[in-house]
């Protein structure tokens, strides 16, 4: 939690500064402050704000990648097409299936792992590294490795299933199973990262609070419910928000493992946008998809903050 505290201190620091910005007497200091911001603003502007604004503009045009000079303003036509686009609807349905399942699974796993390794036993270092190692591997590599494990005819997983007497599964080649397999692989790959943040949060809960609760006669489970969880709230909120946004951006796993199939069951909006823009060359329409989907993500992030109670954590 030391880190988190540091971040909060940073925030209040900014706030204090912003007050002094209005103060004319420290003009010099203000200029220095803005100059400090400049590099970040330039980088963010070049790689985030300007491209985002360009996408917004392109979404109202018929920009075809091969004829940039013939681009024309077509107002809302892209959005009209989009509303009747069944593939986009399918992809949005798929991503909600993914989000609904991966959020509890990945965050729950991360919390469980953090609780497990949050002891000073010998060997916890090994587990920390073991749980975290998938995070540092490239997603493409992870996906390819799982492709081998999940191969229905010769994969390791089916060998194991058959050894213990269970029927072999089609996994990624079944439209009903493919998305769940991707959820599992993604949670396995990503949980280590959230585990580390949870761990930082856990280690920052003061020992006295636990002592006090023990004196009050709380058992381990009550301690977990009434001390650990509430004290983890700021950490949890950060994790829930970042995991949600990351989940909405799913593309690599289906791209490598299923190419969006079978029967579009793992086609995600970002993958669909990529395909429309870069394979089909319809930059204008892809931009409209991006704008629409960006809106959906913003709405759900705000809703989540409302429901999880993010506003109380200042």
């Amino acid at each position, binding site marked *: 939690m030391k880190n988190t505290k540091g971040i909060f201190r940073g925030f209040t620091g900014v706030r204090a500064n912003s007050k002094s910005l209005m103060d004319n007497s420290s003009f010099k200091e203000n200029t*220095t402050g803005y*100059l*400090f911001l*400049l*590099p970040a603003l*330039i980088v963010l502007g070049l790689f985030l704000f300007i491209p985002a604004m360009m996408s917004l503009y392109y979404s109202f045009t018929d920009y*075809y*990648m*091969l*004829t*940039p000079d013939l681009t024309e303003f077509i107002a809302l036509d892209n959005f009209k097409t989009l509303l009747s686009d069944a593939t986009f609807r399918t992809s949005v349905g798929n991503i909600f299936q993914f989000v609904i399942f991966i959020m509890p699974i990945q965050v729950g796993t991360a919390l469980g792992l953090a609780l497990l390794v949050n002891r000073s036993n010998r060997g916890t270092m090994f587990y920390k590294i073991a749980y975290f190692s998938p995070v540092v591997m490239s997603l493409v590599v992870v996906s390819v490795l799982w492709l*081998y494990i999940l*191969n*229905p*005819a*010769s994969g390791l997983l089916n060998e194991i299933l058959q050894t213990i007497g269970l029927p072999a599964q*089609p996994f990624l*080649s079944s*439209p009903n199973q493919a998305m769940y397999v991707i959820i599992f692989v993604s949670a396995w790959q990503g949980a280590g990262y959230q585990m580390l943040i949870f761990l930082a949060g856990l280690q920052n809960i003061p020992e006295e609070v636990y002592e006090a609760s023990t004196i009050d006669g709380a058992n381990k489970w009550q301690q977990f419910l009434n001390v650990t969880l509430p004290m983890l709230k700021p950490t949890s909120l950060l994790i829930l928000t970042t995991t949600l946004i990351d989940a909405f951006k799913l593309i690599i796993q289906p791209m490598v493992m*299923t*190419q*969006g*199939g*079978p*029967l*579009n069951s793992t086609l995600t909006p970002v993958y669909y946008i990529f395909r429309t823009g*870069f*394979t*089909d*060359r319809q930059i204008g329409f892809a931009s409209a998809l991006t704008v629409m989907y960006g809106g959906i993500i913003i709405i759900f992030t705000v809703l989540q903050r409302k429901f999880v109670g993010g506003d109380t954590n200042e």
Partner: protein
Amino acid sequence: MNRMSKYFMLMSSAALLAACGNGESDSSGENSGNGGSASSDEVTVWVQYSEESAEGQVMVESIEEFNETNEEGITAVVEYIPRSGSGGGYEDKINAALTTDSLPDVITLDGPNTAAYANSQIIQPLDEYISSTDDLLPSIIEQGTFNDELYSIGYSESGVGFFYNRTMLEEAGVDLDTLPTVDDPWTWDEFNGLLDTLASNYDGPVLDMGFDDQSEWLLYAFSPFVWSAGGEITNEEGTEAVGYFDSEETVSAFDFIQSLVEEGYSTITPVEKGFHTGEYPLYMSGSWTMQELDNEYEDIDYGIMPYPVSPNTNELFSPTGSWAYGMTTSTEKPEEAGVLIEFLTSEQELYDMSMGNSVLPARQSVADRMLEEVEEPMQVLIEQNSKTGRARPTLINYPQVSRTFQETVTESTYYEQNPDLNSLLETKAQEIESNLE
């Protein structure tokens, strides 16, 4: 604090300057790649492979020879821009160059892109610059033709056949002398006979058709079944798909494809490298597999047989396609670029490219020459290619049409979900038609 901040500012502005500087030198590098700004007799070519690749090695020598021998005093400069698997990298560079109007004089392009590039006026017709087109394989002409004009010339060909494991076929009691040839192919029924023999002998799927490769492969390799049945993806003009892609003939082809999975002869989840490791006796794959087998799986004694044909037509079709040369519309030196393309697609250069890179030839004369020098499996593919090769449709929205075709193949192999191929193909035909202009 103040000193620190000044130091930091200095550092960051230096970093920024460095970044900008890099950007500038990059773009000037690009400009020097653009033939327009260089010396008057310099022609620039962009290619999609690296200098170290087999293709690259041949290209380096070809260009050296061209620069020494051409009578017009033209200097050709090649920029090697390797592409990633799906054509990224190289095509990204082309797309970026379009927005900044900095394309070179000559580019390479994937055959099916010809229509889109020609329609967007990125490349221009080659007819007036190229004289020796008679000898080019019909599939190369088809692939490069848009609105009756030749826009691109493939510098090699590719093909697909049915690889068979001699040892495994003989073990199952198949007489190898009875196998089909390009002049006397098997019908789908005869082919099923072989599959049946093998399936009962080896218990399980015996043919890997790459159903798990949900990419361009599915159109490339499976469209010959449609053509052999007398079906089409679109009409000749490329304006209609309804009535073509959902015709009785097309349905019969997909019915055959579906039956291969339904009967258990083939599988949608093949074992990785199943043919290479002796798991499957049959493998539908492309010319590139020969190299892999010869270099890394020498134990497999294999042959190649041609596509089976529809019993209704007995007509053999095989897939073709390759990367090709095109001349940009923006070039200021069309004459010189034409001379270079003519040279690069001449008999000797295409021969060197095909032999150096173990790919099929793009000219009949090269095919005749190679037939005497290569081994039997390669001979089958060369023969099948020059006698029966057919190019994929030249359509502006090819990527979308291809994806619909790919989905149709995949969906038909999910036979339980899609027992009614007629209605599946009706839907798909409409989807294709919505992407035609």
